[in-house]
């Protein structure tokens, strides 16, 4: 056991002993280190002004990803390389190509969002040198600019992509050196404390199991995209906190099932989803913004039991299961059974989600829908997952699950019954659309009224039918605008 948090900050080693569970990376950067280029805009991971890169060791080597420093806990940076805008430079020591393009294309006005945008674009430039406008928009889902209308920013990003130079970039050149330094930081369990706020970073998953046996009431923190707000918004105490974002990273496909360690982030799973459940890929890229997808994990998305849940409706429709572990005892639960009631899940104290198993169902007709006020980076008003098996024109299996319609993500039993065994035909879906009204009693709030939620839920059955049928007319917005 070691009492020190160790990471690299802009290439230089940092070792800290007094770290509290709720200390954020942003406050550390701005207050302790006076690295004021990183801004606080919202402290909830929605505006991107605090975007920094975090480099971490993965099976694919050292990977740098944009994250929100405001809801990233400092303790979760153990063994990582934190890169802020102050570290960015071009090969000649001057402006980086992203920065130069932002200047040339007048991509900043008030400038407050700019460092965060520069960092998000830097992350994209590094990972996708050929990024087009759509990729840039996806990369900027988590960045708000209130001044420019984004047009010059997108133009700047395209120009920086054309300028190239990735191989000569400082982080690329120093990659092996940095990776070696980070490797040295890994190892045993880390226990930290400040003002009584304990933070524990288990060495590995077995260690996590052991920690949770000792501390069954500890707050388990993976990506902190939700727990971060408990601290920054609600000022809740989260100690003792156990940081698990570095654990349970396994991902593989086996027997027609994707098996994801609970610590796999949305971003890390994206390629597998795209490959094996292509119908859900667009949906996947609408979970949070890019920074959130780089932090948030599928296991925690399930474990925290949100009534909306980004992934559960889809995963329930696919028939996903989860593996829960307590100490050295494991059990498997169908995802739909894990959600018992609002705020209540089938998880015992000291138990944690270790793995998520997602059947890919290549023969099924699958769809995932997210309805929100704003297309990107919005909390869902209604989410839906459809998975239908059709044999000889008859629906032989129907699994349809919704989020945002009840206190938990839930299957639409009445609508499913209306589909099951019926012809795969418009009329069947009309009946199901009417039936879904009786499946749920949604709430009205600022995201959507109950009326809207009910209407949309019904219409999604109509949409599903249209998408599966050749009508000769576009049924999706992006087809209609040729984007």
């Amino acid at each position: 056991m070691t009492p020190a948090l160790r990471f690299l900050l802009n290439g230089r080693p940092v070792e800290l002993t007094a770290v509290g569970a709720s200390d954020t990376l942003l406050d550390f950067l701005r207050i302790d280190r006076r690295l004021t280029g990183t801004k606080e805009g919202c402290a909830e991971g929605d505006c991107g002004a605090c975007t920094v890169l975090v480099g971490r060791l993965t099976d694919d080597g050292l990977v740098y990803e944009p994250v929100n420093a405001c809801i990233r806990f400092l303790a979760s940076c153990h063994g990582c390389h934190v890169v802020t805008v102050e570290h960015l430079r071009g090969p000649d020591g001057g402006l980086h190509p992203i920065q130069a393009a932002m200047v040339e294309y007048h991509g900043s006005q008030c400038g407050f969002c700019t460092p965060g945008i520069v960092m998000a674009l830097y992350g994209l430039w590094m990972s996708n040198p050929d990024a087009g406008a759509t990729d840039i928009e996806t990369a900027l889902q988590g960045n708000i600019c209130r001044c420019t209308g984004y047009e010059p920013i997108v133009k700047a990003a395209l120009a920086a992509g054309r300028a190239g130079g990735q191989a000569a970039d400082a982080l690329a050149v120093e990659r092996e050196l940095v990776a070696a330094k980070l490797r040295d930081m890994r190892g045993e369990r880390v226990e930290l404390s400040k003002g009584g706020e304990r933070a524990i970073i288990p060495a590995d998953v077995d260690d996590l199991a052991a920690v949770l046996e000792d501390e069954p009431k500890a707050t388990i923190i993976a990506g902190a995209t939700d727990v971060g707000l408990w601290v920054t918004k609600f000022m809740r105490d989260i100690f003792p906190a156990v940081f698990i974002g570095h654990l349970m990273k396994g991902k593989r496909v086996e027997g027609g099932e994707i098996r994801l360690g609970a610590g796999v982030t949305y971003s890390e799973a994206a390629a597998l989803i795209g490959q094996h459940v292509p119908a859900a890929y667009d949906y996947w890229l609408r979970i949070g913004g890019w920074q959130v997808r780089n932090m948030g994990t599928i296991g925690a998305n399930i474990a925290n039991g949100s009534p909306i849940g980004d992934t559960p409706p889809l995963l329930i429709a696919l028939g996903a299961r989860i593996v829960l572990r307590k100490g050295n005892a494991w059990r498997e639960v169908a995802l739909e059974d894990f959600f018992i009631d609002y705020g209540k899940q089938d998880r015992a104290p000291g138990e944690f989600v270790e793995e998520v198993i997602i059947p890919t169902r290549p023969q099924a007709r699958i769809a995932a829908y997210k309805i929100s006020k704003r297309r990107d980076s919005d909390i869902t008003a209604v989410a839906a997952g459809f998975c239908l098996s059709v044999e000889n024109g008859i629906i032989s299996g129907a699994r349809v699950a919704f989020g945002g319609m009840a206190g938990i993500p839930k299957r639409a039993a009445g609508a499913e019954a209306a589909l099951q065994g019926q012809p795969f035909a418009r009329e069947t879906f009309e009946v199901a659309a009417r039936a879904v009204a009786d499946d749920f009693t949604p709430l009205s709030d600022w995201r959507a009224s109950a009326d809207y939620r009910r209407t949309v839920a019904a219409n999604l059955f109509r949409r599903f039918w249209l998408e599966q049928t050749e009508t000769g007319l576009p049924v999706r917005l992006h087809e209609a605008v040729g984007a």
Partner: protein
Amino acid sequence: MKDETIIRGQVHQDTIHDSAIKHVTGRADYTDDLAEPYGLLHAYLGLSQCAHGLITGMDFTETLAHPGVVGVLTAKDIPGVNDVSPNGKDDDPIFADGEVLFWGQPVFAVIAETRDGARRAAHKARITYDVLPHALDPLAARDAGMGYVTDPLTLKRGDADAGMAAAPHVIKGRFSIGGQDHFYLEGQIAMAVPGEDEDVTINVSTQHPSEVQHMVAHVLGCQNNAVVVNVRRMGGGFGGKETQMNLFSCVAAIAAKRWNRAVKIRPDRDDDMTATGKRHDFVVDYEVGFDDTGKIRAVRGDWYARCGFSADLSGPVTDRALFHCDNAYFYPDVRVSSHPMKTHTVSNTAFRGFGGPQGVIVAERMVEEIAYALGLDPLEVRKRNLYENGQLTPYHQEVNDQILPRIFEELEVSSDYHSRRQAVLDWNAKGGVIRKGIAITPVKFGISFTATWFNQAGALIHVYNDGSIALNHGGCEMGQGLNTKVAQVVAEAFQCDIGNIKITRTTTEKVPNTSATAASSGTDLNGMAALDAAEQIKARLVDFVAERWQQPKEEVRFVPGHIRAGDHEIPFREVIAAAYMARIHLSAAGFYKTPKIHWDRATGRGRPFYYYAYGAAVSEVSVDTLTGEYVIDRTDVIHDVGRSLNPAIDKGQVEGAFVQGAGWLTTEELWWDDKGRLRTHAPSTYKVPLASDRPRVFNVRLADWSEATERTIKRSKAVGEPPFMLGISVFEAINMAVASFSGYREHPRLDAPATPERVLLAIEKLRG
């Protein structure tokens, strides 16, 4: 001839924002980035948890026991007056005193060693209330007899009743228009540093340093000359920092003087959005009479505004809604009235357009209604009603700089409007799930503060003896490129490279009694004031050079980097060095006041605006009729900024304003619950446009042939606000897509914002 070389940063040229490199490298300092004085304390506000009630108790026991807490401030701790109303109405307390008037009203402040400590301690206070009934929206407030926060206004010309009675057709409607949060990326912040005697220095993110100065003096009970206010830049303002930072500045100043330590105050985003004012929501009852050709005969209307608990700027905001109720159209007979309703909500304030958008959008609604009723292309109705030069507005100002016919003509061609409208109609006729709409909407926006005395500005220029120039003016930089444009004016005047000019922070120590950087006026006013200062120094230099080099004054000219006197061409630096030795005064204070304007509110007549800025946009949208979601397929804009001082910066203003305007009318929704709590108070719940929301194709062009008819700075026109209203084209395009379900026989009358929910429910209604 060296005239061929040009200086860097001359006027009418693209020049990068003076802080662009600092922005992209993170080295631009905002108020929270300034080095903190030793011993800095932090203040945090405690907000009311009641929309309307009497305070029955305040228990700070736990707050004061929180580690690091130094003290608490309440209404009784204010040395001067507990008021930050910008209009002298004394209705805007810093801390609620006895009665709270909205949920989220500041009641007290905690002062502590750390911000986190102050924030946590503030949440430990126990405030109890006798809860009283509340009214949140303007009509509920009217029904509850809440009254006005400020005097209403009626504009009239001709006989609206007779005109209406004589009109062949009349349409009446009610239009509910939502407000808007500024969502400046940098929230409210102020840091006060105490000095000797009564002195205090405030570093604050503000659009109005002079008002901060006056307010701080007011609440401290000292003279204005004891208070210095500095602002280098804001991380966005949009009107939200015209009056709203007064309260924060005052709290910091009171605490700084009380404890004799520097004090910083920065609310978190939720508190910022809850406790500060926004764009006014309106409910408008309108009535338009028109003939068979779509020509408007008469207009009557009542604009009910959610002003909040105090007047703030609601008077001029609701006035401006009426000033723009005609947008670009001539109303032969008109009578319109404002109703600035008091409500139990945060006091609404300035926001880009300042009430104008809520006037313009009603004009556009009426025009659309007429077009649908007559089965015409709304563009036709628009063109038939455009002002002709010489016609009078409802406030009796003559329009004489009309350029919209040409803008429309060019836009129709460049956007291929007519064939695209036909394509949209054909597309919708197929009856698919995705419906389209296309709309072209203009803007005519009056430029000048309607409070005539605000139309003045000062500047201060020092030329140092090495030839470098320090430029200061009363305007504030919030991203709009004001400092760059004013520096270009000065660079042009002296014919020296813009890199030779240091643009310094705005401070009340250098230019006194400034107006807010608002009403799009920053460059118009401060550019002129800076030019005046430059011309004074130039005149002295001309005299000096003429004498020293023995040339007639007419032969002395400023050329790039040099001053030419007859055959002599002397580098600027050398002239300055020589002028210093000759004891020439190398500093000047400039001043400007806008000529020709006057306004008599009592009679509703005058010339409140020096000139108008014009523009138009065509937007095409696709609407998913199963979910109500939509995409802006394409937008084409032609906008008038006169002879642009900096086309790149002006184009950026147009693009940004358009997207912000589209956001106001689409996804930006303010939502209060029945307790009076604003529940959309952070970016997680309040949705401003993202990169993926901007038009898929976005063609923005400046009307480069336009030139201000009045003697504005280099014949340019103001740009900040006018293009905001071009976002209305998106709103009307969405209406058209919805109207396809009724065969375009009637306007679907979407309320704003047209969230996917409103769009879908409107479609479902028409679908039946």
